């Protein structure tokens, strides 16, 4: 059949597929293909010196169970998530309330809160590196002035991870604040006035009206914060390189080390699948459970 005689319905389908094609090509080439490839790759051991890769089945996954560094990175990552997510979200919400309250100079305040998000991550990490530096870093100078003894913030196992958490919170909170601010400005002022007339205190109004109305934003931010927590890697390069003794190593950083420092890409692929699994679990949990509690207008 010559193309000119094709039925309109068929042409519609062809048009639809053609229009979808560019986006599909990109998502297939840069997301689906690498993901599937990683999954397959995780069953192979790299051939050294040009030799072909060797099928090893579930061996990489078995090794995962014994790999102490992996366990350490996993626990660290969970701690990191538990530290950064609630802190950055509650901080973001509080900051949004503050800059939405109609105080004098709130534009300047908004800018201040947002600046950490705009700065390049590596530069930010370098600034914090100076804060944490032993003996002459900002933190130590303050402590010194107060007569306290020196702490090697990034160099001791007890404080390295909390330090990294602090940087991440500082960086993320401002970004999340923007979403909260936008959501807050969607809430009509008459709701606040009605609540005020009914005798509700400011606190009651925020607790019973504003925060529930912000739930869709919270869900969105929560998903993003979780993803951020598991893909956090940039600061580590500058701040700790995962040390000391892997005390601040996170999953993605460990994956980087295994894949591109030790060039064990097969094991790296297996680690990546674990990371993907975590992210999938987290988003299913959040959308599945929380969605029901969220009020969408």
């Amino acid at each position, binding site marked *: 059949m010559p193309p000119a005689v094709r039925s309109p319905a068929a042409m519609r389908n062809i048009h639809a597929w053609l229009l979808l094609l560019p986006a599909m090509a990109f998502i297939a080439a840069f997301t689906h293909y690498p993901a599937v490839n990683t999954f397959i790759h995780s069953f192979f051991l790299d051939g050294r010196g040009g030799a072909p890769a060797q099928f090893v089945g579930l061996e990489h996954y078995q090794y995962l169970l014994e790999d102490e560094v992996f366990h350490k990175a996993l626990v660290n990552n969970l701690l990191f998530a538990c530290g950064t997510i609630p802190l950055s979200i509650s901080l973001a919400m509080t900051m949004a309330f503050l800059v939405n309250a109609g105080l004098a100079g709130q534009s300047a305040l908004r800018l201040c809160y947002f600046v950490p998000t705009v700065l390049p991550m590596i530069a930010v990490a370098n600034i914090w590196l100076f804060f944490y530096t032993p003996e002459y870093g900002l933190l130590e100078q303050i402590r010194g002035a107060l007569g306290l003894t020196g702490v090697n913030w990034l160099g001791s196992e007890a404080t390295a991870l909390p330090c990294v958490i602090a940087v991440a919170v500082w960086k993320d909170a401002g970004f999340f604040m923007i979403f909260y601010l936008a959501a807050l400005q969607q809430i*009509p002022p008459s*709701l606040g*006035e*009605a609540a005020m007339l009914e005798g509700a205190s400011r606190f009651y109004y925020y607790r019973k009206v504003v925060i529930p109305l912000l739930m869709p934003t919270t869900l969105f931010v929560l998903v993003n914060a979780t993803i951020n927590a598991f893909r956090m890697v940039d600061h580590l390069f500058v701040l700790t390189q995962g040390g000391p003794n892997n005390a601040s190593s996170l999953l993605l950083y460990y994956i980087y080390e295994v894949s591109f420092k030790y060039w064990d890409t097969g094991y790296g692929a297996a680690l990546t699948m674990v990371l993907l699994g975590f992210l999938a679990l987290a988003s299913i949990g959040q959308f599945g459970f929380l969605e029901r509690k969220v009020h969408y*207008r």
Partner: protein
Amino acid sequence: MSAIQLLNVSRHWGDVRAVDDVSFEVEQGTMLVLLGPSGCGKSTTLRLIAGLESVTSGRITIGERDVTNLPPAQRQLAMVFQSYALFPHLTVRDNILFGLTVRKVPEAEREKRLTRAVDILGLGGLLLRKPGELSGGQQQRVALGRALVAEAAVCLMDEPLSNLDAKLRHEMRREIRALQQTLGMTMVYVTHDQTEAMSMADRIILMQGGRIVQNATPSELYSRPATTFAGSFIGTPPMNLVRLDDARGSVCVAGSRSGTVSVVDSANHILGIRPEHVRIAPEGWRAVVESVEYLGSSSVLGCRVGGEELSVVVDGVSPIAVGAEIYLHCPDEHIHVFDAATGERRGTCR
């Protein structure tokens, strides 16, 4: 006894005088309507009574108590907002009971008031819905319900019907008025719709530019408008305002030799004539019909008398076509006389 009293109340924002030296009283159990075009200060006045804005100067008392500096919650009033201000995440029930829960009213009392409000407003069966699942009229009822259960001394309403369609608006207008009368509520109601004001109010305060133009009953406002503005704001079609000329010793309608006027002795006046009081007569002011607007039970003729335009209401379908020459007459007792310079009422003749 007056339930609400405003004494020389002003609200200024810099040079803008949103409300400027306003004084009035609202009697217990009556409905007062604040009427005016947008930006006239009527909503601001209401918000001043509610305490949502603070006064620049003046005094407000509610039930003999000076509330000028009290926060809204302590003024013992309920308010219905133009947007209804329902909490979108709460059910109808929780929306209505919001204030009572805040004020920790005992459970039994809460239920009693809820049941009563639900009965009055016909909200049964909707209690577990959220506002988003209700029609505009139902949302309006929920907002009313929230105001009812508060059992406050005063109920304020800020253009509560402006988001409803015409039919529903008419229904709710009657319903709110009936509610106000049966429950003996003291109500202050803001609107820009003169029909709403005329049909509902015990008293109307007409505002313009932050000031009170006239404080009167609906019938007074119609029969004795204080200014040309008051005359033209009330009534559909609005009052005809006719400018005058001196012509060889007599006064006549501007630009018209035949339109002699006997009720005033100089041209420094403006005549206010309601379209429904003008008659087509065998003789009088010569006029040319320029438009005919058919409204069903009546028609409005747009007529030109000299340089002035006059609307004339006739019953049913107009037998007169566009372009026809007719003569118009208005009995002297229906002619309102205003000062040409100030626009203020000089009285009807006689």
